[in-house]
């Protein structure tokens, strides 16, 4: 069984991202970049499937600037077998990414595509669903447990009401939620081994994909500064404020 995992290069989750002073986007100059945490969970899940003898090959793919090679390498150090890097300097929208992934699916015919449920930069939560639509394959988003039996998979999904268990036919798209697993650390020997694994480079144009943006970013602004709070005198005042000012209780 072949697994394709998509990983995205994003600002490290520890970084406090600021807007550029001209409001044209986030200021990423000299910012530490990392693999999107949900993508890392997706990689880990694939590696566990391989360790269980279910998966035979794990291909990791990233779409973005040349520098995203670093995140592909990280995924290889975590246990993926080979990488594909689709380079472009265009700001990518979810649909463009999904189309690139569709092209890779056509070439590689994976049995499962694992993605993060969303990337922590745009928080879009689109790509997996769009890829599902483009491929026509079954999709199971927000996965917190994944079990493969033969040509189908049972997925426990995290939904607003709690947990939902569904069964899907393969090939399928699965997007990872936070509790799917806890990713391992890349060890030094595995980082060294990853250096010898191949990463094939291609471009959206070579894949026949048009990645031109469909939307225009008008302005990127920091959220309004939080105002200082006040100290209430007593419980009665607190209840009064919650009722009449905040209107969160009645």
């Amino acid at each position, binding site marked *: 069984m072949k697994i394709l995992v998509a990983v995205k290069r994003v600002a490290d989750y520890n970084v406090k991202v600021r807007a550029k002073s001209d409001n044209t986007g986030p200021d990423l100059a000299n910012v530490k970049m990392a693999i999107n945490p949900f993508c890392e969970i997706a990689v880990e899940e694939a590696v566990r499937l391989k360790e269980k003898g279910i998966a035979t090959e794990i291909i990791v793919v990233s779409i973005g600037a040349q520098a995203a090679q670093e995140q592909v390498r990280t995924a290889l*150090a975590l246990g993926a077998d080979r990488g594909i890097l689709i380079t472009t300097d265009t700001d990518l929208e979810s649909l463009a990414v999904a189309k690139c992934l569709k092209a890779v699916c056509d070439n590689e015919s994976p049995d499962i595509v694992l993605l993060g449920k969303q990337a922590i930069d745009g928080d879009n939560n689109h790509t997996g669903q769009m890829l599902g639509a483009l491929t026509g394959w079954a999709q199971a988003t927000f996965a917190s447990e994944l079990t493969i039996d033969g040509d189908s998979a049972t997925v426990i999904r995290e939904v607003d009401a709690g947990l939902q268990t569904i069964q899907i036919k393969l090939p399928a798209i699965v997007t990872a939620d936070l509790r799917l697993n806890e990713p391992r*650390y890349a060890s*030094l*020997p595995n980082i060294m081994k990853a250096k010898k694994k191949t990463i094939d480079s291609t471009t959206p144009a070579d894949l026949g994909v048009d990645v031109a943006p469909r939307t225009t970013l008008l302005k990127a602004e920091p959220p309004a500064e939080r105002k200082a709070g006040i100290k209430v005198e007593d419980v009665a005042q607190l209840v009064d404020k919650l009722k009449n000012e905040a209107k969160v209780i009645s």
Partner: protein
Amino acid sequence: MDFNLSDEQRAFQDAARAFAQGEMAPYAAEWDEEKIFPRDAIAAAGAMGFCGMYSPQELGGMGMSRLDASIVLEELAAACSSTAAFISIHNMATWMACTWGTEAVHSEFCEQLVVGEKLASYCLTEANAGSDAASISTKAIRDGKGTGDDYILNGGKSFISGAGSTDVLVLMARTGANDSGASGITAFAIPADLPGISYGKNESKMGWNSQPTRTISFEDVRVSAHYRLGAEGEGFKIAMKGLDGGRINIATCSIGAAQTTLNHAQQYIQERKQFGKPLAAFQALQFKLADMVTELVAARQMVRLAAFKLDNNDADKSTYCAMAKRFATDIGFQVCNEALQLHGGYGYLKEYPIERFLRDTRVHQILEGTNEIMRVIVARRILEEGATDIIR
């Protein structure tokens, strides 16, 4: 010349940081307070490849450069400098056993040492031989009567890190006459539990509480010759070669610790208000922070330069290692101390990690050669004719 880390070095750094922040930082205060030697965390570090970083790959080590090892170690020290320092000593002793050990040493210890399944101590200092390490008096005498190939070990060591909790002792002892000086010293790597070896109590210390420090006594300990490292009389040279790398490691531990305290101070002075403003609004404190980061960056580069010299087997590597150790451990302690000062009274409390890093880095100015001895080494070289053209 490229001062940027390579992609691979950044991957090492990221891996070390993730491990250290996940598996060390949350527990470091407890290890310190309760004097816990974190065997499990060290074993996990071994699985990550952190226990035999510059040991040869043929023996299961990582075969990394000293520079790469320093990048990793800094991240471990940023989480718990005491535990990182033990791991650094283990790396040094393991490298010595790998480099000069016989096949018997390799097969009995090294494969497990490089992955942290066994741990090693470095045993040079004695009660009456500290800075003057060539004056050690622990004796290893060839046994004429027994198999003839054994040594009989008598004497004692002091201040041995990890002692009592480690499995292998890398030990320097005198095989020559009492007055034979450095050339009468021989190195060994021996099982830590041979009959006749006994351990003192865990010393009560200012810092480095996550690792035991003990005296060791040797009473008629029979040591097979196959445990000898190198030839008779080479022991002091071997010990000093170990320390070249050890000094880079210890210097690195100060850098990691200082970086963490700097991070805390940078945040703290922006949050803490006095006189109606954040502390960071006072230029006196801004300048302090500016000096801290300037000196810390300089110290880190000095350490990396020394590591580079050692990796390239530069003729003056020992001088650079001594300069780096002196400078980085002084600056590292100073930065921790300034960070504590910036925290005011809170820096003195154990609620904040600053005082722990301060206590832990203090000893870096003393061990693996005191900073005075580092100056002795540097001065000896710089006074030679032409040295000012070379050491720069």
